[in-house]
């Protein structure tokens, strides 16, 4: 059950990264790929019906972490206090920017929210990547299970690198999403942007993989044959996405698969720990020593998996209802 919970949480975060990832990507790119007000509105209409539901995967994952591994939630969230507050403020700024942009029709109002949306998306993608990098690298978790995450500690070179990877991957993903959802000039610019970003993704994925292996962060990983499926998925996704002339929808599937591969690799790298201690391996918070009681794990697992199946169905329905190309003038953006 402890292991099942680990993979459920990893799955939730992966779903979040894929779904909200394209929202963040669209946010980072829309200033470039969409130049006029109707084009910007097209970009927003492409994510409008779904962004809120996408963000909830992160919120639900947070709630699930409380109930399944309370000590990890407690240590991680309090240790990252200031960084997480920054993430919260950015999430607020991003959500408000999307929802309130269309409420008043004025160029200055639009520009303000467009730039807010772009900056908040960029910083969120970066900070989430930094957080993941620190989880991979390990944190100075002490004997009492806590650590104090100063900015100097969190912004180490490895985490900065994973932060950059996150930005580039999600931007590529967002560009691919726009390729699939838009037409005309926006689609053309998204295609050109995606082509350039694809190569940046390749370089950064290679670099991060190399550093992770050389840094000794992936020692557990090497001993798990099944885990190699994830890097394999990553390679496949890169092949699919970078082949010139691949279709727009194929490209979006490729970047989704790439995120799945990267997130899965990350999960397989840290397992069975959730927070690795750099002080002493015995202090690491793992799926065994940081978990709730077996009964609590079991009930919440059933309740949440049933719920998530419903959510997945619903998410599928909404994506299907709003499938196809968006056109200007849709929605209230």
């Amino acid at each position, binding site marked *: 059950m402890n292991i099942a919970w680990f993979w459920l949480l990893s799955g939730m975060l992966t779903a979040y990264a894929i779904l909200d990832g394209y929202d963040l990507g669209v946010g980072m790119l829309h200033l470039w790929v969409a130049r006029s007000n109707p084009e910007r509105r097209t970009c927003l209409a492409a994510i409008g019906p779904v962004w809120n539901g996408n963000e909830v995967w992160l919120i639900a994952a947070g709630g699930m972490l409380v109930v399944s591994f309370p000590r990890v939630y407690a240590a991680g969230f309090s240790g990252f206090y200031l960084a997480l507050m920054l993430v919260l403020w950015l999430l607020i700024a991003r959500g408000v920017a999307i929802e309130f942009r269309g409420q*008043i029709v004025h160029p200055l109002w639009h520009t303000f929210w467009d730039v807010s949306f772009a900056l908040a998306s960029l910083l969120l993608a970066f900070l989430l990547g930094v957080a993941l990098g620190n989880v991979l690298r390990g944190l100075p978790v002490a004997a009492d299970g806590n650590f104090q995450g100063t900015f100097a500690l969190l912004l180490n070179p490895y985490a900065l690198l994973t932060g950059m990877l996150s930005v580039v991957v999600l931007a590529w993903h967002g560009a691919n999403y726009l390729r699939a959802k838009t037409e005309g000039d926006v689609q053309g610019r998204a295609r050109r942007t995606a082509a350039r970003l694809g190569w940046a993704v390749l370089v950064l994925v290679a670099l991060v993989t190399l550093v992770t292996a050389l840094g000794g962060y992936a020692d557990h990983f090497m001993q798990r044959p099944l885990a190699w499926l994830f890097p394999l998925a990553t390679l496949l996704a890169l092949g699919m996405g970078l082949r010139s002339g691949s279709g727009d929808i194929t490209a979006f599937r490729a970047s989704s698969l790439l995120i799945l591969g990267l997130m899965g690799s990350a999960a397989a790298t840290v397992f069975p720990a959730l927070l690795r201690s750099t002080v002493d391996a015995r202090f690491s918070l793992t799926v065994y020593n940081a978990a709730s009681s077996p009964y609590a*794990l079991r009930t919440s697992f059933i309740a949440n998996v049933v719920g998530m199946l419903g959510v997945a169905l619903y998410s599928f329905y909404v994506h299907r209802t709003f499938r196809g190309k968006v056109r200007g003038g849709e929605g209230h953006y």
Partner: protein
Amino acid sequence: MTEAVFAHRVQFAFTVMFHYLFPILTMGLGSFLALLATLHLWTGQERYAVAARFWTRIFVVSFALGVVTGIPLEFEFGTNWSRFASFGGGIFGQMLPLEGVYAFFLESGFIGLFLFGAGRVHRVIHWLAGLGVAFGSLLSGYFIVAADAWMQHPVGFTQDASGAIQLQSFWKVLFNPYAGWQFAHTINGALLTAAFVLAAVGAFYSLMGWHRDFARLSLRMGVIAGLVLGLTQLFPTGDMDGRNVVHYQPIKLAAMEGLFENQKGAPLAIVGMPDTQRGILLDPIYVPHMLSFLAYGDFAATVDGLNSYPRDLWPPVELTYYAYHVMVGLGTIFIAIMLLGAGLLWRGRLYNARWFLWILMLAVPFPFIANEAGWMVTEIGRQPWLVYGLMRTEAGTSLNVAAGETVFTTLGFAGIYLMLGLLFLLLTGKVIAEGPATPDATAAEAS
């Protein structure tokens, strides 16, 4: 209480109170939206669809702010209250992802369908989406109330010799006896607020002479619903929620009522100022024997006063007392206003009684204040406990977060929330100024 504990409490209190302003409105309006959508489907009259579209636009602004200000709260259990999260996460935490998974998805998903789906989906599906929004917001509220009820009256767990607790029964936590009436009282408060908002907007339009049909519909719905909900706020929901306090938290009751000495046939203090130094209520106006009757259904029953309990178990008496009296006093005034409104409606004079329309319009902030005051009674009255009888508040904080950090981010939240509050007023003001005649937001923008 150390500086850090105080800083954590202020941060949580501020962020949760600001956040709650928006769910009050969305939980309340959600049900009115469902009602209007149903009336439209049933009668086929366009005016219900027009009204539903108008209130959806207000709902969306409030909902967006409720979502963005709600996320910090879920984080704060870990960032500010990490020892509490470690201690009780496996139990009260059962409710948090359920809120995310079931209720939140229902709500945030269906609102998208309700907003964007008109014309793209079948009208029955569109109506169901409207119901889903209302149902989701209520369910969402229930999970949160159940989590809070566990902190008020912890159930469904076992404790070992080391003091650590484990979940014993999921269903006992979900159906905590404390939660039922607390939820009913909370939702009733949200619905009452929405009724006041409907009536206030209707009153504003009537005073301005705008949108006559819509104004009258809103006034009628607001006043009738407001009267019914005003009464149910007091009885049975308020009364039964109060019984929870009587049974499970007698010290909170004593603080709410400003009762220091044990008293047989205790009176109910309508006004008065508690003096905790001397242990008396200054300048009180009493209704004799009433408190004994309300608490136990018996005019002669004995009610325990604060002095029966050691001082270190007292909640902050003044805050609890004043918050409770503000809530009850406002609740009484609400009933009076709505009775008057219903009387005028009965005599056919409501739409032209300008003095009364002014009252309705200016009354709109007060239901929000009453809701917040009610939660202040619940949470401040719970002190000094974080989990009643199990964990004291100062034992639940994060030790690795300094007071200065919390103060700094609280100031950050204050600045951001000031901006969000202004935005909310600006945008709802704009929706109200544009009025219901605008078919929908899309058309407004196309211009």
